[in-house]
Structure formats: structure tokens, C-alpha cells
């Protein structure tokens, strides 16, 4: 992780040095490296900036809002052309966003929202968690094609917004299909170990797994743990029990390639791409983007070249 941050800052510095005055300079304040997905988002943001010839000033806030506010103030002082920020918390941004607005620097929020007035930022790019769950649910409806199906659900951390929204979305997705029924639903805390433990209990409780037709996990890590539990119970994951989950981390592509998982919904780490596009349009002719740009929640199945996707994803820092 340290190595990556170091590389990132060296990269940012060298880009800085190479920057001509005509080039666009964008400051990016990242939360920190809290998860593999976050690391991948940083990597992809740098790649997107590079392909567009944008100079990216990167600042790692190490999970602290005061670091982010300091970074934003320093971006404003440097007079960057735009600011990207993944806010660590939702509150307390009003004054620094006002400073940016006074300096006429557009701010784009990535992945997370703030509770300030929408006038204070240009737009927000993010995924719709409910939509992700709905895509997973709709896939299952299509996959079982009217056959009766008893589903077990591995929830994320109880009370967290991904857990609540991905559960609600999935239920929306299967709402029309009376043949599909969620029979057991428990939290697996978004971890592999708990995913495996809870799946073992589900398998025991459902006649050794014979009564389970599909597993829906709120993230891929829990699905990877559950796949091991299914295998150890003497069943074939992906055939005896369908597996659908959300996030699209590299390890689930391996499981897809091996036929052990059936589908995953991508939470794309490419939040910066749409942000840069919106900024380019804004700079070109003042086009105001929508206040919320929803990223695509793409569905990957075994038919979507999982091995190739694994190779493309594995070096992003997940």
C-alpha cells in the first residue's frame, strides 16, 4: 500500500513537472486506502487522467476529514482547474466548498455524497446501490426461468447503507416472480470468513443444501467464502446452487471462469472517467451536467470472458 502511495505521489510529481501552462490541472482528494476497491479507484483515476492528458494532483487523506479540507484549500491556493473529492464523511463541507465556488473552481464528488447544498458542487458521480441489487435480482429471475427457487441471502454489515440498499434492490428485482423466495437472510459482515460460516449454517438448515437453489451475496468476498462452504458440503457451486453477488473484484472473476459463480454486478472503480467527461463539456461550452451522474452497474456472467476480465482487473490494486 505504501509502495503504491509512493508511486502515486512520484507519478503526480512528475506529471506536475511536465505540465505545460495550457494543460488542465485537476486536484484529487482521496479518502485513503480503506479497501481494495478504493485502491482500484485511485489507480483508475490516475489512468483516466493520463489518457486524457490531464495533470492530476493526488492527495491521500488517510481517512481524516481535516486532511481532505486542508488538501482542498491547498488545491484552491494553487489555482487548479477543477477538484475531485471522495468525501470521507457527509457533513462539514459547506465552508470549503464555498471557498472553491468563490475561486470559481468546479468540484466533482466521487462515489460518496455530501449534505451541503447542490449549488456548491458541479456534480456527483456514483453508483446506485439499489440499482445494483435490482440488476442481480433481475438476472436471477431470468436465469431460473420460472422454476421454483429458494434463495439464501448473505447481507452486508447490519445497518450499513450498502446492505440496506442492496437488499431492497434485490427484493425489487425479484418482486414480480412468485417462483423466487428468499428463505434465509443473515449478515456475513462483508467478509470471506463470515460468508463461509453463515453459508455453512444455511446449508445445514436447508437439508444439507438440497433445498437451496441460489445464493445472493451483498459482496463478492462473502460469495467467495460461501463457494468454499458449498464445495465442502459436497455440492457444486454454480450448478447445484447458483451464485450471484455484487462488486466484481478480481477473485470473483476467477470463480466465474472456474464455473463456480454465475454472475456479479460491477461497482465500477471508474468514477473519474464520467467526472472528467462532465468537466470537459463544462470547460468547452459551459454545459451544466446533471447533479448526479449514475455509473453503469454492469452485469458479468460466465459468458463475459471472466478470465480476460480477471487479467484486466487484477493489477488495479484490489
Amino acid at each position, binding site marked *: *500500500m*505504501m*509502495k503504491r502511495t509512493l508511486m502515486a505521489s512520484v507519478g503526480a510529481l512528475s506529471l506536475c513537472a511536465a505540465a505545460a501552462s495550457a494543460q488542465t490541472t485537476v486536484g484529487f482528494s482521496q479518502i485513503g*486506502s480503506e479497501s*481494495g476497491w478504493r*485502491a482500484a479507484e485511485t489507480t483508475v483515476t490516475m489512468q483516466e487522467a493520463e489518457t486524457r492528458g490531464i495533470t492530476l494532483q493526488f492527495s491521500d487523506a488517510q481517512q481524516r476529514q481535516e486532511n481532505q479540507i486542508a488538501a482542498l484549500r491547498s488545491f484552491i491556493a494553487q489555482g487548479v482547474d477543477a477538484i475531485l473529492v471522495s468525501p470521507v464523511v457527509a457533513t462539514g463541507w459547506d465552508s470549503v466548498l464555498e471557498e472553491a465556488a468563490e475561486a470559481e473552481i468546479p468540484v466533482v464528488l466521487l462515489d460518496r455524497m455530501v449534505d451541503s447544498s447542490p449549488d456548491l458542487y458541479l456534480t456527483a458521480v456514483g453508483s446506485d446501490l439499489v440499482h445494483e441489487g435490482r440488476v442481480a435480482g433481475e438476472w436471477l429471475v431470468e436465469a431460473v426461468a420460472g422454476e421454483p427457487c429458494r434463495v439464501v441471502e448473505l*447481507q452486508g454489515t*447490519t*445497518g450499513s447503507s450498502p446492505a440496506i440498499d442492496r437488499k431492497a434492490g434485490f427484493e425489487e428485482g425479484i418482486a414480480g416472480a412468485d417462483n423466487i423466495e428468499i428463505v*434465509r*437472510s*443473515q*449478515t456475513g*459482515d462483508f*467478509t*470471506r*470468513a*463470515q460468508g*463461509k*460460516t*453463515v453459508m*455453512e*449454517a*444455511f446449508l*445445514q*438448515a436447508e437439508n*444439507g443444501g438440497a433445498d437451496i437453489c441460489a445464493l445472493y451475496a451483498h459482496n463478492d*468476498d462473502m460469495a*467467495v*467464502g460461501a463457494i*468454499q462452504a458449498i464445495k*465442502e*458440503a*459436497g455440492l457444486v457451486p454454480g450448478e447445484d446452487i447458483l451464485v450471484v453477488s455484487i462488486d466484481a473484484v478480481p*477473485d470473483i472473476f476467477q470463480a466465474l471462469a472456474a464455473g463456480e459463480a454465475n454472475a456479479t454486478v460491477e461497482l465500477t472503480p471508474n468514477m473519474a472517467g464520467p467526472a472528467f467527461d462532465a468537466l470537459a463539456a463544462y470547460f468547452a461550452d459551459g454545459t451544466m451536467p446533471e447533479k448526479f451522474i449514475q455509473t453503469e452497474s454492469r452485469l458479468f456472467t460466465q459468458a463475459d470472458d471472466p478470465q480476460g476480465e480477471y487479467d484486466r482487473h487484477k493489477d488495479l*490494486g*484490489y
Partner: protein
Amino acid sequence: MTAARKLLRRIAPQLITLVAVILLVSLYYPDFYKVVLVNDRLVGIPIDVLKRCAPVALLAIGMTLVIATRGIDLSVGTVMAICGAAAAWSIDQGYGLWGALAIAGAAGLVCGVWNGILVAVLGIQPIVATLILMVAGRGIAQLITNGTILTFDSDAFSYLGSGTLIGVPVPTVIWILTGIAVGLLVRRTALGLLIEAIGVNLRASTLAGINSKVLLIAVYVASGLCAAMAGIIATADIRGADANNAGLWLELDAILAVVIGGNSPLGGRFSIVASLLGALIIQTINTGILLAGFPSEFNLVIKAVLVIVILVLQSPRLMLLQDPVHLPFLRKRAAPTPPAEVRK
């Protein structure tokens, strides 16, 4: 009273609690006792409980010894993460099964020595001394795994987490054998007595000629090694080292197991068997919650209520479980009766 009867009397409250918890769970899940043989491995809820309690049971063995010396080891959950990460890293680097075990064991040993020196040599309060590693250690584990879940492919190593030996899950075999080995070591020698002596009065024990510094360090090392085994099992189980989540908050479950086992946090007399029963009680509750099918929002509340009930029933003022035949109000009347020998 023979040694066996003495032991039975000591662990009677824990046995009664365990049976009560099992009965409670089987109310919600009548098939609780069903165990079948599938693909040469025993499958059933009791087997699940015996397997899933392995990390807490192993941690509780070390924790019992530490608590007997009037200490506490808050770092065990983190040490699990460090040792698991070290093991996964070693496999990844191609050191093989034995190399991984040696490196993970060495990591546990170093952590134990560190805690031991802080407590025994520098005289830092155990809760503060081990808090240091508890907080800092997860960072060390993350450095080893580079912040990601470090996965590996080694059937020999994953056997320790998900394999079976004559149908019994390997983690179960490991914790039972470790429990027996440590139990024999402390009870068949004077070691247990010396540990209890340190816990009752460190100064007096030192003056009486016990090498309390070495013994204290040894106790924390034992705890570190138990945590290393727990970390190896947890890592082997999911074929990956998850530095953020491996062993997270398990130190609290381990302390709870020791306390449910009737061991005093103030040190002194201890029973490893009772702590292991405590770990089984906790795991039966955990598994029971998963089987009962309540919404997950209730998990912690149910666990908390059950733990409170157990601890209240075991509390010194009630002593209901300690002496189930003679309830407190009866004991008053029974006490003045002179023993049979005196009456003759």
C-alpha cells in the same frame, strides 16, 4: 474426593449452561443433534459448533493462563491477523507448508515475547501493554498483505482449516489436542500452581523463589502461540489472509469464554476445561442464532441477553449454578449442620 469428581464439580455450572443453551437452540431447530457422514466427513450442527469454536477455544486456552496471572491479553485477535498474514505470505513466496507454519509460529512467539517483556520486565499494566499491539498489530498485518486479501493456493495448508481427520474437522482436532496438552502440562506439573501463585500475589511468589519474570513472559508467549494457531486455522479456512477482519474482536470472545468458564479476572485458580466449555457455549449461541432465522438486527441483542443471563446465574451472590441442589435460601439452614464424622 477424587480428582475426576473434583473436576466435574468445578465444571458442573458450565456443563449445565451448555446443556441449557443446546436445549434452547433445539427448541428453534429440532434437528440440532443430527450428524451424518457425507463424503467421509461428519456433517451436522454439533460438528459445525466444534469446528467453528476453534479460534476462540485456542485463544481461550492462552487467555486462561494469562488471566490466571492477573493479566489480560487484548492483542490476541490482532496476533491472529499477523500470523495469518505471515503464513499466507510464506505460502505465496513458496516456502511451503512447514515454512509457513514455522514463520507464523515465529510471528506469534515474537508477539508473545513483546507483550511479556512489556508486562514482566517493564512492569506496564497488562491491559495497556497488550493494547499497544492490539492497535498497532493490524497495521503490521496490513503491511504484510499490502492491504489486500492475500490469497494462496495450497491444498496442504488449507487442510488445516477445512480438512478432516477420520471424519472430524482438523480445527476441532487441533483445539482439543492443544487443550489436553496444555491442561496436562499445567496440572501434571507444578506449573499451574506457580501460575496461580503469581496471580494471587506476585510479590510473595517472587519472594518465595518463583522466577516470576520468566513465568510471566512464558504465559504471554503461550497466548501468542495459541493466537498463531488460531490465525493459521482462520487463514487456511478461507484460503486467504484478510488482515482487516481476521480475528477482529475475537479477543473479547476469548475473554468472555474465560469468564463464562468461571475463572476470576483477578487471577488465581483457573480451569482450562471450563474456559473451553465457555468457548463451546459462545459458539453454540452464535450458531443457534444463525439457525433460528431471526433478522440479523437481533443477533447481538440475543447474544447479549443470553450472556447476561449466564453471568447473572453464575454470580457469587446467586451461585445457582455452582450448587444447583442447595439453593441460597436453603444453604443458610444447611450450613450449621456439623459434618457426619464430627457427630459420631
